[in-house]
């Protein structure tokens, strides 16, 4: 939510009128005043990549990293305090400090994870956490999914081909994998479900069971020690009109070990071979490389082993010794912070490991995988061709969904939707479930634009969306049944792109009505990266206006005041262009008893007669693709884009193809640029 108040009144003593002039240096997009003027025709990109302070892993990055390194879910981390937001994102390095509360929770999370991984203390049972067999159930709605949505009774609906999966630690042993599933029948064959280990199918079953009596499918597999990705995937999606075959998954279970032929009994020990000394050394080395995201020295391993020895000297177990080692790793600043070595104030190329971390946290919000670490170890990641190949590989990986959840959801304020409320008397259609649907719709469209490598312009012009029955009813568009989402063609409707979706329209409205000013301001800030100058002081608000006037007329009266007009003359038309959509995104031709007037014009003479017109106008602006680039750079670097960076950012955007570029095109340009590949040191 933005709080820049359009209406301000101050005591005259609070400011000196002679100093109050708002600096207007430039006539920017639509002829609005901007605070910075850059001549993009002639500017020369700065060679200074800027300085980025050490990032602390934010909450999402911490959880993802721990999961990827240790194969366990750090439950304690879910109660970490939210990270502070600056420049619209929660991964801004300067803001990622360590408050005492967070430190307390780091300690608790480290203990929890260490104990789960090592199995040396008794908390939740872990697979292989003892010699006896156990059953671990992973509820489908609680683990990762590549597609689908929550269905009734705790099932997950895989509505297109995709997978529910999770990572878990196993011993070298035989296990049983089990899943509870049913299908919605459609087409000529039954749904095919596949149990997978590390992405490969180990068992495929035809599922004829329906919702009334779900079936159990299961398979026995031999697994080798370590973190395994286990899952259930849906292989044969079918959709023809209203006939829709889906696979519903209740849970996935890991049962075992069924046989124990292990050299060392139970816990973390079962993940390695050799005697205790060898085993503790191997495990420490293997984890530490991942935790530090770089190659490590013998000396570093030995230091950690001294902690292991503390426990052994106390007469404690192997597992307890390893638990302390892991606990210390998770408290190390070399895990919690992404620290890039400093070399005075010089500008230098990042080394391979630093680059691997930047890439991984940018595209995946998590720690580098084996392939990145291996390439870095070989010193090859800094090779431009190989780097681009890696970016393409990473973008194709399901982990790139982090860009939707973390980048786009913040950029488009989808996270803020949680806090939206509506007057129930005015909006009886509105409920929290619908809010979730709105968010899902926009996330799915963005995911599709990302996955299908579509052009940025489609963000505003896409002729498709995803709807379920509730959204279809809200939009007055047919074609979606039930709670599940299906892709709907929007040709011939009033809707196209994100700005006609309920998520945007709702997030920028007030509880009782639309707010054209909020919508306009949002478009300026999030899509055009133009920050309206702050309202000048001593501005009288919307007082003494004719209460029977339309909102548009009231705002026009407001703009009669030149002090207000300076920014409202752009902000307001942008917002009023979407007045055909009410405060929860329903189409309307009247606002109360007054007809909606969706026409408008800007100070530079450009105008529009409908929101479709306005969308075309927006997309045609260089600021549109420039702005997305700027947001991506901000998120990718974890720092604000400064005036000195803007020339390069504009160039990256243009080189990538401006509004015709895809996200991948842009990300390739960004990751190849000096901004991303170099750093300037601090004194």
């Amino acid at each position, binding site marked *: *939510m933005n*709080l820049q108040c359009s*209406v301000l009144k101050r005591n005259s003593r609070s400011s000196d009128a002679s100093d109050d002039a708002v600096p207007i240096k430039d006539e920017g997009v639509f002829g609005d005043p901007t605070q910075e003027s850059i001549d993009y025709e002639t500017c020369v990109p700065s060679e200074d990549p800027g*300085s980025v302070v050490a990032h602390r892993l934010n909450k999402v990055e911490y959880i993802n990293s721990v999961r990827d390194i240790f194969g366990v879910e750090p439950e304690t981390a879910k109660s970490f305090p939210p990270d502070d*937001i600056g420049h619209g994102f929660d991964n801004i390095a300067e803001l990622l400090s360590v*408050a005492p509360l967070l430190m307390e929770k780091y*300690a608790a999370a480290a203990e929890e994870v260490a104990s789960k991984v090592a199995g040396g203390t008794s908390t939740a049972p872990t697979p292989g956490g003892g010699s006896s067999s156990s059953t671990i159930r992973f509820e489908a709605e609680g683990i990762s999914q590549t597609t689908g949505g929550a269905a009734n009774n705790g099932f997950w609906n895989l509505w297109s081909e995709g997978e529910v999966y999770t990572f878990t630690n196993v011993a070298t042993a035989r296990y049983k994998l089990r899943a509870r599933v049913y299908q919605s029948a459609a087409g000529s064959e039954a749904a095919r479900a596949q149990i997978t280990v590390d992405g490969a199918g180990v068992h495929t079953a035809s599922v004829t069971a329906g919702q009334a009596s779900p079936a159990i499918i299961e398979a026995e597999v031999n697994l080798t020690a370590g973190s395994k990705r286990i899952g259930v995937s849906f292989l044969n999606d079918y959709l023809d009109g209203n006939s829709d075959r889906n696979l519903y998954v209740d849970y996935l279970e890991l049962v075992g070990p069924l046989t124990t032929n292990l050299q060392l009994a139970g816990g973390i020990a079962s993940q390695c071979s050799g005697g205790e000394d060898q085993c503790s050394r191997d495990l420490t080395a293997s984890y530490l490389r991942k935790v530090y995201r770089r190659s490590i020295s013998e000396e570093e391993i030995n230091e950690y082993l001294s902690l292991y020895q503390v426990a052994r000297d106390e007469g404690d177990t192997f597992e307890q010794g390893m638990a302390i080692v892991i606990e210390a790793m998770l408290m190390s600043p*070399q895990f919690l*912070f992404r620290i890039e070595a400093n070399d005075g104030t010089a500008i230098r190329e990042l080394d391979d490991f630093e680059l691997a971390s930047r890439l991984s946290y940018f595209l995946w919000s998590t720690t580098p995988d084996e392939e990145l670490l291996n390439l870095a170890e070989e010193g090859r990641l800094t090779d431009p061709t190989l780097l681009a190949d890696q970016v393409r590989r990473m973008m194709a990986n399901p982990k790139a969904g982090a860009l939707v959840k973390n980048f786009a959801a913040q950029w488009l304020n989808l996270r803020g939707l949680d806090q939206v409320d509506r007057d129930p008397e005015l909006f009886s259609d509105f409920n929290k479930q619908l809010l979730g649907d709105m968010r899902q719709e926009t996330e799915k469209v963005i995911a599709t634009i990302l996955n299908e490598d579509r052009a940025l312009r489609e963000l505003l012009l896409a002729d498709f969306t995803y709807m379920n029955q509730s959204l279809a009813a809200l939009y007055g568009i047919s074609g979606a049944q039930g709670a599940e989402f299906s892709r709907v063609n929007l040709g011939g409707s009033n809707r196209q792109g994100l700005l006609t979706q309920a998520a945007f329209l709702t997030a920028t409205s007030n509880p009782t009505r639309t707010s054209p000013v909020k919508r306009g301001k*949002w478009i300026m800030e999030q899509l055009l990266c133009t920050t309206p100058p702050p309202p000048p002081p001593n501005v009288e608000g919307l007082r003494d206006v004719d209460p029977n006037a339309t909102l548009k007329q009231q705002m026009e009266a407001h703009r009669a005041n030149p002090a207000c007009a300076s920014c409202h003359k752009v902000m307001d038309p942008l917002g009023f262009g979407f007045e055909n959509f009410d405060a929860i995104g329903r189409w309307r031709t009247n606002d109360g008893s007054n007809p909606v007037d969706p026409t408008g014009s800007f100070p530079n003479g450009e105008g529009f007669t409908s929101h479709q017109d306005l969308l075309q106008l927006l997309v045609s602006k260089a600021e549109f693709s420039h702005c997305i680039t700027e947001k991506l750079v901000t998120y990718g670097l974890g720092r604000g884009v400064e005036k000195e960076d803007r020339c390069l950012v504009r160039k990256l955007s243009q080189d990538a193809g401006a509004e015709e570029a895809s996200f991948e095109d842009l990300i390739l340009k960004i990751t190849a640029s000096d901004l991303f590949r170099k750093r300037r040191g601090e004194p």
Partner: protein
Amino acid sequence: MSKLKPLPRRTFLKGMGTAVALPLLESMIPSRSYAQGQGAKRLAILFLPNGVNREQFYPGQTGTNYTLPSSLSSLANLRQDFLFISGLANPSADYTPQDGGGDHARSAGTFLTNVRVNKSESNVRAARSFDQIVADTLGQGTAFRSLELGGEGGSSAGGCDSGYSCAYTRNISWASATTPNPKEINPRLVFDRLFATGGQATDEQLARRRLYQKSILDFVRNDTQRLLAKVGSADKQKLDEYLTRVRELEQRVENGSDITSCQSGNPPTNSPAGYDQRVKLVLDLMVLAFQCDLTRVITFMFANEGSNQNFPFIGINEGHHDLSHHAGNGDKKAKLAAINKWQVSQYAYFIEKLKSSSEGGSNILDQSFVILGGGIEDGDTHNHHDLPILLAGRGGGNITLGQHIRHQEKPLANLYLALASRLGVNLTKHGDSTGNLF
């Protein structure tokens, strides 16, 4: 702090998921609620965002015989337990042409720091806040140096206020100039943190665990110190801060204050449905934390500054911030007054509970200071010159309460100096203070 059989806090709350629905204070009464911190002085600060409807909040008369404004009506039975102090200003929050908009960010950012905060989306700079300075003295030896709590979290995206980082609007407590203290808002998490107990551990197990914790922290401290030599100035500042955190944890382990001796009843359910229920539970937990002497310093934000929270439980579906720009509209002002009335009723509830918590020959309220206040006087003008401030409790000393005292634009920080001296905290200058208020 006296200890019974110590229970480790370091456990996962297995089996606690089946909590009873919405237990209020009665079902969370600790088994030993008496005299845990006899004679201890305490400070609680409850922060109001968005200003108030002045007409129904500020008394028209000064002295003891003022007519209680309608928004304060729930304090009728507690008249003798609080002061209404008007005329306190926070000049560091004032508008300047250079800083421009952002009065919400400045309201919360300066409320307890009393310095002009740096206008930036990412380079945040305020100061160590008053509550933290008090905690340096009062917080020694309690399980928690201080608690930072609130009624509204921080998941919204986008900008927060006109070029200021959200850090300013969401926090009033600052551990240092660059590190705000985030608040817990989920009563269940607060409960878990305060009262986490697991199975009984033997003394030997506890001793060994402590040894391991010390070894780990020692290791991490050395690791951090070595790194410090290799980094630039900005990173050094971050790692220095991390080192401070490591030392604080070491201190906790050292003096055993990571172990609570005060047992509670049932935990609250994970996420109570409504905002009002959540606020009530957090206030209950604040009472418990004082009763159990788990902490002596608490800050609580009813909501983030600039919050657009609605209040359906009192029939208000519009957002608070939207309403606060009332532009003189009577309906909006009436709704604002209703919101204020509800907020004050929560304050009344809290101080009433403290008053009825006897401790030695006194009660917790008399030993404490409890502020209800905000950094904006009226949300429509955003001014910071005549802030709404209520002060309850006597801080263990002699103060004549039960009156409305009006000052002529004295800095809010002057009040803090006055409270500090009565709490036994040595503080002669804080931010823009110009002297001791009383």
